[in-house]
């Protein structure tokens, strides 16, 4: 445990170690450094790092704070937009497509809802992308509180 404690001294700021490092090591040699002491050292190192002003540390701290605030705000806000898409597959629908559709519906269950439906065309459409087995997509995005369904397709 003493070895771990002595390694943790390196977590303290360099300036602090230059001033107190030697006597701090002597204290660790004298005292019985158990796991509570190791935790105390870790806590002390973090406090000491943040008590020494430094631009990279400030930037890191503000970035983490901004990220956490963003996460909290986004989790508290209700979803505003709903997107819907319908993909028509012509001809025989390959079995391998169905899991993809299910996956897309599953990932769309978060803040941006998406409904992907599998449809069939019994006759060839002029909007088909290719001759044999084509596909066509339709859908839109609308405000959840403004309209019932898609009216402004993108």
């Amino acid at each position: 445990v003493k070895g771990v404690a002595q390694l943790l001294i390196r977590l303290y700021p360099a300036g602090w170690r230059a001033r107190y490092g030697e006597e701090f090591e002597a204290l660790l040699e004298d005292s019985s450094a158990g796991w509570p002491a190791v935790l105390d050292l870790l806590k002390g190192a973090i406090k000491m790092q943040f008590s020494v002003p430094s631009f990279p540390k400030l930037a890191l701290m503000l970035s983490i704070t901004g990220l956490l605030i963003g996460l909290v705000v986004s989790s508290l806000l209700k979803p505003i937009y709903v997107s819907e898409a319908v993909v028509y597959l012509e001809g025989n629908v390959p079995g391998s497509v169905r899991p993809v559709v299910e996956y897309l519906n599953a990932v769309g269950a978060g803040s941006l809802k998406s409904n992907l439906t599998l449809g069939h065309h019994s006759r060839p459409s002029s909007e088909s992308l290719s001759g044999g087995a084509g596909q066509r997509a339709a859908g839109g995005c609308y405000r959840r509180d403004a309209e019932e369904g898609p009216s402004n397709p993108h």
Partner: protein
Amino acid sequence: MSDPTLLVLSSLAEGDKHGYAMMQDIETFAGIRLGPGTLYGAITRLEEHGWIRPSGTKNRRQPYTITPSGRQHLQQELATLQQIVKTGLSRVKHA
């Protein structure tokens, strides 16, 4: 009274001590075992305020001494604590 800075000042009010001696003294008179990080965090803050300073020659087991301003600060803090203890005890009695 568990503020580490007050515990260190109270320990040094008796006489100069190095880190480990402070740790043992505090455990004896307050029943609190300060961890090394907490102890040296307190020593760092107290030295920054000018309330303690290293005494004697530079040594691996560096002793510290309380300064006159440190002693004055300790007296003020203890007087405040004494007032709190007195008020708290009287209210507990009458409750």
